[in-house]
């Protein structure tokens, strides 16, 4: 086998690897967003059908303008979101979907780390790992922001 043929074979192998990892990543992207949005949609429909948020029920105009640290209106920490979901409260279910959506890019970068490990691409294993750690740190730091 000549030098050129060898090179072409390596290139073709690289392309094939890229094909597989692109497909994997593409599937992950669409399914992660579909699952989180499905949960959000479920909560929204429940709210519209039952008319109950599962928390303090307020007129629409007030609901629109109320955010901030008002846990009586909707939960915004992991614990209360999980408890509210178990009690099938519509606003807790929506917030659970939102939490899943926020976590999905962390899963995406983790999948990338695995792909690069399999491809034995050390520099990108390092880059993806640092990004992964930054995203984890952002969730941890979130507790300290007011």
């Amino acid at each position, binding site marked *: 086998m000549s030098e050129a043929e060898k090179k072409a074979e390596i290139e073709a192998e690289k392309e094939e690897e890229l094909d597989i990892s692109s497909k994997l990543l593409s599937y992950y*992207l669409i399914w992660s967003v579909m699952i989180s949005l499905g949960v959000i949609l479920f909560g929204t429909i429940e709210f519209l059908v039952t008319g109950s948020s599962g928390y303090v029920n307020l007129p629409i105009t007030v609901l629109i303008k109320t955010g901030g640290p008002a846990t009586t209106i909707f939960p915004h*920490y992991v614990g209360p979101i999980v408890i509210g979901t178990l009690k099938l409260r519509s606003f807790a279910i929506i917030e659970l*979907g939102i939490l899943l959506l926020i*976590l999905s890019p962390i899963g*995406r970068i983790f999948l990338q780390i695995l792909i690069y490990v399999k491809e034995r691409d050390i520099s990108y294993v390092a880059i993806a790992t640092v990004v992964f750690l930054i995203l984890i740190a952002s969730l941890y730091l979130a507790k300290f922001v007011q």
Partner: protein
Amino acid sequence: MLESALLYVLLIILASFFAGIIGSIAGLGGGVLIVPFLSLYFKVPISLAIGASIISVIATSSGAASAYVRDKISNIRVGTFLVLFTTSGAIAGAFLEPVAPARIIYLTFGTVLLISIIPLIMKLGEKVPKNVKNAPLAEKLSLNSHFYDSESGKELDYNVTGIKSGSAMMLVAGILSGLLGIGSGVFKVIAMDTFMRLPIKVSTTTSNFMIGMTAAASAGIYLFRGEVNPFIAAPVAIGVLVGAMVGSRILMKIRGNTVRIIFAIIIVAVAVEMLLNGVGIRV
């Protein structure tokens, strides 16, 4: 009460759907359109509008990038490398947000929009930047690649340069993302297009791949702060996702130039609106 709730939800879904289409084509999260829409038409407080928008950025990114990654238009290596800078910037930006007053946020938004027009117009007619040599770092990280261009029906090769200036711009983009609750795709596209000389379709689609991760870095902060109101964020996320999936299919078919012109007009209108709010005139 329920009828008006349904109408409210449907209106926000519809508006977010269009924001999702435009966002996925132009490499933006669509937040740049959703935040002014929510605050101007629905009188949603700006902090809640931003909270809803940053969630929608993740939905747009995953919805559009799924198609772009599968068709290998997004450059995943470039995206992953640059996300290092945008995510660290985003954390810093989210910490700064509570001390930034609403008026300045409006003014910043308006200026961000105006700046984003320049590269849009300058790129008219260009397909693949010529005479670009790979930077040494690009060679090392094998950032250069190729993509299938549907207009000419050919695989086009491209090189990557300006890694340092591009990375610096990404840090700024990240800070803005955390501060304004936008994917700051405009700045990402400028960085890749102007500094790193990537082809325009590669720049916008790679930006789409990146904005979700940048937004995720600050979204947790908004969630725990209680600024992601389910009643607003849910319809926005649903509308934007469907829009992004439609938009990513449109991008493959239409000519880049047409989109640029329409988009430049929309951006001018919204920018003027926001700047007026910034100086205290409510439209």
